[in-house]
């Protein structure tokens, strides 16, 4: 009985932590003004928020195939979220002409693209 209560308390704490991260992400997305800043806040919810919510659910669920699937969702998110973030930031960097002094597509000497152009 005591163990069950301890497990419940741990699950509640982890779920609450995940919700706090998600709350901060939503707050940040509404608070910042530029899309590149907003992405910073959204990425936190995509990684830490979903990790803690899924950990809480796994603790509540116990060790089973279900909790393995929930963990798989987290693993997939941690692989997919940086890729989609990169795509969004490239879209913003290409299409926003008022970004100012940030030279996003700067090409250094001797990089791979340079070599590619020589060929």
């Amino acid at each position, binding site marked *: 009985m005591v163990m*069950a*209560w301890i497990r*419940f308390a741990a*699950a*509640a704490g982890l*779920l609450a932590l*995940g*919700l706090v991260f*998600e*709350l901060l*992400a*939503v707050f940040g*997305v*509404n608070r910042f003004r530029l*899309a590149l800043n*907003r*992405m910073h806040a*959204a990425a936190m*919810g*995509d990684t830490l*928020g*979903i990790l803690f*919510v*899924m950990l809480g*659910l796994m603790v*509540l*669920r116990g060790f089973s*195939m*279900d909790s393995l*699937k*929930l963990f*798989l*969702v987290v693993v*997939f*998110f941690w692989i*997919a979220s940086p*890729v*989609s973030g990169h*795509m*969004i930031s*490239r*879209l*913003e960097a*290409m*299409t*926003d*002409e*008022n*970004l100012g002094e940030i*030279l996003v*597509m700067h*090409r250094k000497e001797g990089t791979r*693209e340079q070599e*590619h*152009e020589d060929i």
Partner: protein
Amino acid sequence: MLNLFGDGLLVGTMLVLAVLIIVSMIRSVLGPRIADRIIAVNMTGTMIIMILAVLSVYLDENYLADVCLLYAMISFLGVVVLCKVYTGVYLQKKRIKADLGAVEDNLKHQEKNKEGRQQAAGKKGQEVS
């Protein structure tokens, strides 16, 4: 007793996430640029996935975890396709080359834009003086 508390915890989590989804959808309508909208929609998808996961524990259904995984994959695919499409739309509108030449063309556009802004600022300064 513990069962009741567990149900309350899961329902409370779902309620908070629902409120956050509504706020995030408002941001996706308001967002001035297309990237803001994509970010907000992506975040909405993340929270829907969380709700699905909570629901799979709440209803004790196995298949909702699979739905969760599939939703994550389709949401990722949607973001990638939207980004590609809107980049292509922009390049076509500006008649910029889409390949390696795009870098130089884009830099040229940025330079032109900067000059335009400086001229506008100069004009404004003259009007003031």
